[in-house]
């Protein structure tokens, strides 16, 4: 008997480990549904919809929800907020347990495609046609919310990336926004020679370096091959990929990045830009808001499009959207569409334009406090490519982050990095068969 108890104790201890390994849920729930609303719902007249969104960047949402509920007394909205990684985790868990909310925020590309391709999102193609979305939203944003020909999300944001710099630094060194790749590289050296860290990159998580890698790929591979690499239709073991990784290595060796950048948090790297200790940071249309939040003036900064020497010169872009649960009842779907269209409407954008981010809508007022929003959106006019971590399957994107780090740390040569990527792509494709 004693042996059995001992064995049971051991098994239970081990079970604690297994249970402990499941990650916590860093969410905060804001229930905007008023008590009276619940009472009405009990009467059967009210529709209550649940929405999961990000915590950061959505500070304007509670007021918008209140306004919506006042004008639509038959609909109440329950908002749950998550940080970036927790919302991805919570959605995956909810998807596998069939407990997805009625609508949720997601990024485009391989992040949003998971739900659409597995039949968990409402097909909004007919709604988009009936409501003339092509006249309301940027077509690129609609395209990025479309999977297998079906519109699978209401576009919220269309983000465009660019190279931001403090005007003071450029003025002191008599520099202008570079027009060619050679000029860009020459400026990096000029910045370095003047004891300014050329590229304020913090690559913990891989994103900052990835944003440079993808433009280097665009430069060396050209748009056609770059697109094929992202869609896994071309081998990553290609001279253009080797050259792109070679540049990462060269810039690291020349000290163009901050010391220890591969484990530096992006926010730590960002502080170098504010202190004018660094020259350039690769951020997007949201960065005016970030500058303001950190107590600085966006007018002290400017932005240029990465000079990748290609025609057309494409910018890195990505969309964000609301997806609607395919399984939820029709009344809730209808309410969710109404609410999603309201949140992405010109009136709401104009009311909160300073905090809204980069709208996917075509019509909105540009605020003085976000002076770089329009130039960045215009810079995508020549075309854009989907940002790499959304274009690639997640496990291939993770391998790219690893390859970038290994090249910088001298663990891999650029050739080995290209081969490592190719191997990861092959392994991924073999699993999909």
């Amino acid at each position, binding site marked *: 008997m004693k042996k059995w108890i*001992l*064995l049971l*104790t*051991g*098994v*239970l*201890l*081990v*079970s*604690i*480990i*297994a*249970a*402990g*390994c499941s*990650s916590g849920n860093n969410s905060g729930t804001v229930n905007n549904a008023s008590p009276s609303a619940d009472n009405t719902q009990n009467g059967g007249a009210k529709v209550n919809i649940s929405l999961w969104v990000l915590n950061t960047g959505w500070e304007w949402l509670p007021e918008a929800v209140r306004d919506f509920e006042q004008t639509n007394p038959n609909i109440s909205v329950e908002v749950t907020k998550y940080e970036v990684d927790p919302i*991805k*985790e919570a959605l*995956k*868990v909810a*998807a*596998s347990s069939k407990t997805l909310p009625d609508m949720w925020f997601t990024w485009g590309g391989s992040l949003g495609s*998971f739900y659409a391709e*597995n039949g*968990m999102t409402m097909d909004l193609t007919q709604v988009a046609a009936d409501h003339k979305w092509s006249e309301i939203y940027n077509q690129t944003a609609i395209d990025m919310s479309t999977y297998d020909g079906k519109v699978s999300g209401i576009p919220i944001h269309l983000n465009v990336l660019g190279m931001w710099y403090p005007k003071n630094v450029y003025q002191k060194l008599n520099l202008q926004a570079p027009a060619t790749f050679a000029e860009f590289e020459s400026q990096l050296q000029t910045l370095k020679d003047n004891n300014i860290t050329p590229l304020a990159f913090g*690559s*913990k*998580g*891989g994103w900052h370096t990835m944003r440079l890698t993808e433009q280097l790929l665009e430069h060396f591979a050209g748009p056609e091959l770059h697109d094929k690499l992202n869609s896994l239709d071309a081998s990553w073991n290609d001279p253009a990929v080797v050259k792109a990784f070679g540049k990462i290595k060269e810039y690291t060796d020349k000290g163009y990045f*901050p*010391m*220890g*950048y*591969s*484990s*530096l*948090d992006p926010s*730590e790297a960002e*502080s*170098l830009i504010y202190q004018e200790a660094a020259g350039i940071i690769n951020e997007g249309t949201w960065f005016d808001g970030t500058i303001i939040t950190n107590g600085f003036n966006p007018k002290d900064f400017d932005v240029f499009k990465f000079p990748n020497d290609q025609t057309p010169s494409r910018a890195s872009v990505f969309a964000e959207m609301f997806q609607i649960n395919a399984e939820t009842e029709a009344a809730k779907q209808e309410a969710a569409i109404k609410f999603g269209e309201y949140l992405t409407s010109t009136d709401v954008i104009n009311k909160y334009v300073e905090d809204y981010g980069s709208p996917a809508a075509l019509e909105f007022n540009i605020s003085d406090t976000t002076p770089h929003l329009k130039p960045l959106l215009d810079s995508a006019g020549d075309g854009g490519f989907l940002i790499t971590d959304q274009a690639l*399957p*997640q*496990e291939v994107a*993770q391998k790219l*982050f*690893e390859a970038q*780090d*290994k090249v*910088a*740390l001298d*663990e891999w040569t650029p050739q080995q990095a290209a081969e490592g990527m190719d191997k990861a792509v092959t*392994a991924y494709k073999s*699993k999909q068969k």
Partner: protein
Amino acid sequence: MTTRTLKPWLFLMPALVIYLTVIFVPSIYTFFLSFFRWNGVTPDKEFVGLGNYTDLIMNDTVFARALRNNLLWTIGSLTLIMGFGLILALMLNKKLKGRIVFRGIFYFPYVLSGIIVATGWTWIYNPTQGFVNKALELLGLESWKHAWLAEPKTALYAVFVAALWQGIGQPMVLFLAGLQTIPQDPYEAAYIDGAKPHQSFWYITLPLLRETFVIVIATTLIASMKVYDIIYGMTGGGPAESTQVLSSWMYNQTFKFANIGTGSAISFFLVMISMIVIIPYVYYTTKKSHV
């Protein structure tokens, strides 16, 4: 079956039922899933037998690194965190002025969230503006300055120092509780017999702390096996996946890549490793103690 035999089972039943439904059954289900290729949502799961396990062992270089890191972390926890916890407990068990305050100071980091500790220590290690490199600069040791979290050779150890700072409070408190249950009589008798302090420690304190050691080793081992938040917060598993541990790699496989079968297989590697250590340990120590 007599009432005497049934009674303890009746008392155990509510907790046992909850335990079985919330922990044991899901664990078995996880084990079951580890034999399938599944993205978590499609109705069809593809049976791959031991494919996920062999794939991890044969093809996944990050898994091998994570396994090695977990073992290093466990060894470090069982020696350094437990060792320093015991030393602090012995010091703070003496009649020192302000010992209550010191107990609070050393225990305080343990109540902080892992992410808060990670954020603070990330700034401490910041290569250009952090305390560590600034202090080295002030001391004239500029050549020692280092990107602590960015070098694969130092990153894991740098994170472990932060974990040590945070985790030392828990074994300290448990050892303190254990020390306070030891009566003074054996020490007095040993003193009269001419025993030196280190002899009293080896022959009285340590044997009488055996039951505390069972708890401390078990909890330390569990904590080291499921370490996640501080690594996630400080390095995110990087640079170049060099600080991945089994929990973080399991998270990536399950929630980022939607490879539920692979994630489940990693979790069962964790369980198996833990079983290999914990079951013989609990069996051995229970035979010799009153627990």
